[in-house]
């Protein structure tokens, strides 16, 4: 492999072009509405960061549960995890750039809001963001480096060591990921709160992570590619099962949040759903549910479609679009309320730009990091088990 990882030169140029065009498109809309343009950058940065964090969590779940099936293609989520370093820096930049878009300054009165004012004070908020991203990056890099070291050393010692490291990482990131979701997404609607919000974002993150792994795995299993004969139909089947499960989990949490707020009809809580259920936003809500649950659920339920690369790839693509739409559905109406000029759910130039930016940048990054290590953890004691299991 070259320095570009699994991409060929022309493919790499294509994805670079996508990223550059995406960035230019977003930049072009700044004069129209800088808030709207920034909203799309926020979506892109959260999308990128959670793909990295999701990859790291997938690796960690594997170690903690002593799983064997996922070892053969573990370098894919590991490569995703390493992208956290670059994506984290981008996120800090985007968050710093748009701090003024969080409208908590407008709610100046003290009293019962003292904690919120302290918690969301701009400096503390930004320092926390740096802290979360630094912790995630450092711990995921450690796990990945131990896994790569095992390629030289072998044995079970490093598998056990990574199990401990992974448990620590999961405990730390459960807390920090919750707070990050509250800070970056929930706080966009400053007077709204929902305790399940972080769990719901976790489900969305894992859905997108699994979809990404399916797409990369399928792309790399063709003859002559690095995972040929390694990423088998059994792996695809298991990943698609997990995607099906996480789609249901996402819907379960989305519905729990919606239903309990709808049922009690408390003004400060329904304020989140009211602007999202009428007119064009109502259609976006419907589309969100369609892409993230209805489609994956009904298509992936039969066994043959989970084992078909073609079908699984299409569903994975739809889920990745659904993840983008879910973030869009959270971010843009919130900005719209605070800044009416930022517009309706028009998927326009800025949106196209943010999607292209994510696609181009993430593919380039993941390909580069994938190329930096052996494509298969060849000394992992559970590799044999992973290569030869059948459902």
């Amino acid at each position: 492999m070259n320095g570009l990882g699994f991409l060929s030169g022309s493919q790499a140029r294509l994805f670079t072009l996508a990223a550059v065009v995406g960035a230019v498109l977003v930049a072009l809309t700044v004069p129209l509405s800088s808030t709207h343009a920034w909203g799309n950058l926020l979506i892109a940065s959260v999308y990128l960061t959670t793909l990295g964090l999701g990859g790291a969590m997938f690796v960690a779940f594997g170690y903690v549960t002593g799983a064997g099936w996922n070892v053969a293609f573990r370098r894919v989520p590991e490569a995703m995890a390493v992208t956290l370093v670059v994506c984290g820096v981008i996120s800090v930049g985007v968050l710093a750039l748009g701090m003024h878009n969080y409208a908590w300054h407008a709610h100046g009165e003290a009293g019962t809001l003292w904690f919120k004012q302290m918690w969301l004070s701009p400096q503390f908020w930004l320092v926390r963001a740096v802290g979360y991203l630094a912790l995630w990056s450092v711990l995921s890099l450690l796990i990945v480096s131990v896994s790569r070291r095992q390629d030289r050393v072998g044995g079970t010692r490093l598998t056990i060591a990574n199990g401990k490291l992974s448990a620590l990482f999961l405990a730390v990131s459960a807390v920090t990921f919750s707070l990050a979701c509250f800070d970056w997404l929930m706080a966009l609607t400053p007077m709204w709160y929902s305790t399940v919000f972080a769990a719901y974002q976790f489900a969305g993150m894992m859905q997108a992570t699994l979809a990404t792994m399916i797409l990369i795995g399928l792309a790399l299993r063709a003859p002559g590619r690095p995972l040929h004969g390694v990423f088998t139909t059994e792996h695809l089947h298991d990943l698609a099962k997990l995607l099906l499960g996480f789609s249901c989990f996402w819907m379960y949490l989305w519905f729990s949040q919606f239903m309990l707020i709808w049922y009690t009809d408390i003004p400060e809580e329904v304020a989140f759903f009211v602007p999202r259920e009428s007119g064009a936003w109502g259609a976006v809500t419907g589309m969100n549910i369609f892409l993230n649950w209805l489609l994956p659920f009904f298509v992936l339920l039969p066994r043959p479609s989970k084992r078909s690369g073609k079908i699984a790839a299409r569903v994975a693509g739809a889920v990745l679009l659904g993840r983008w739409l879910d973030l869009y559905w959270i971010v843009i109406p919130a900005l719209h309320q605070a800044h009416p000029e930022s517009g309706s759910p028009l998927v326009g130039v800025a949106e196209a730009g943010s999607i292209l930016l994510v696609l181009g940048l993430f593919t380039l990054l993941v390909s580069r990091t994938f190329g930096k290590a052996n494509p298969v953890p060849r000394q992992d004691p559970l590799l044999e088990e992973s290569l030869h299991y059948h459902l």
Partner: protein
Amino acid sequence: MSHVDQELRPPLVLGDKSLGDITDDIAAPMAATPSTLWWVGFGIAFSALVLGVVAVSYQIAVGIGTWGLNRTVGWAFDITNFVFWVGIGHAGTLISAVLFLFRQKWRTAVNRSAEAMTIFAVMCAGIFPLIHMGRPWLFFWTLPYPNYRGPLWVNFKSPLLWDVFAISTYLLISAVFWYVGLIPDLATMRDRTQPGLKRSIFSFLSLGWNGSARTWHHYETVYMLLAGLATPLVFSVHTIVSMDFATAVIPGWHTTIFPPYFVAGAIFSGLAMVLTLMLIARKTMRLEDYITVSHVDRMCKLMLAMGCIVGLAYCTEFFIAAYSGNAYEQFLFRNRALGPFSWAFLTMFSCNVIIPQVLWFRAVRRNLFAVFAVAIVVNIGMWFERFVIIVTSLHRDFLPSSWSYYIPTSIEVATLIGSFGLFFTCFLLFCRVAPAIAMAEVKGVAQVKKPESLRIPQPEEAVA
């Protein structure tokens, strides 16, 4: 590979057993006369059950005014016990269905008794809302059907009705799942029993099982389908129980995290109860080779994970109350931690969050006395969790003039003891009449010793 097998994949059955040994070991306690220990346990459990029957008869005769409820605290011991028992009933289906779908082979050692436990726990849970109706003989009014009472329909918008549907469905599917899993073992018992009444019963219940490949194929298809159906049920039951509270507008009850948090809590408490029973059963029924220390280790890890999720949910609730800026939420949580019921809150928090952290250490997870102690502590903590949620949210409501306290009456305590009596009586009887471990499934995961005549030399042995 062999050193890897030992370290990362410890054997699930110890002691180099043959298939026949497995059947003999597991079926032995059913054929022998009960030990003194069993009689002592049964005596205690049955006495508790009798106490419960007396208490329930009394409160039905006199009315539920015999409870310590008051106008402010309208739900307390009854619903606490109900949610506690429903929660206990979650581990069975989790272990048999969810862990089955996740290919966790170690589940075979504990799934049978965990499933039985599920059914008994759901039965215990059912007692409380039934008595709370006041006129339990009219329980069929909770079912929607055309009638001459008006017609008077049930309120489909009420989560209490959803509970009726969810829990009865859960009980039905759990019972079917348990029974289907029992069929091959019942056939084994049939084949081991001398002709007579006992054999006829086993024969009837094993549905003509003949052990052919075709029978096994049907069995495995049904088992897989039931596992797929039971998995959403594990989530739905406690989700709907949580909605009994979360659809209210009461601070402390209305919060969106309740559905997943209740499910995690239920699994947590269920695992604690499974561990409590299994540690006793493995000792008294001499099942140490089947429920090994490594099984206990894995259950502890699962329990720790669930405990941490529950702890995160507690902290999220406090954080969001502070963050929300809602004066009522803030008061409620301050009152929960520091008010008159702070003793209950502290019990809950230390039992569910702080003490289980010792399970991070492998040495603790492999020390059976320590594990037993932690499991008991979690059982207590999870009972208090429901008490804290229900009572502290109610006892100081929006109108300070109606603030009050809650003290359970002796009748309520006797009913709780009675429910434990029912649970343990059923469980002890179950251990006598059915194999406590799924023999057929254990045989599938054990590395069995083959008779010498059937052994084929392995390639590496031949080279050596």
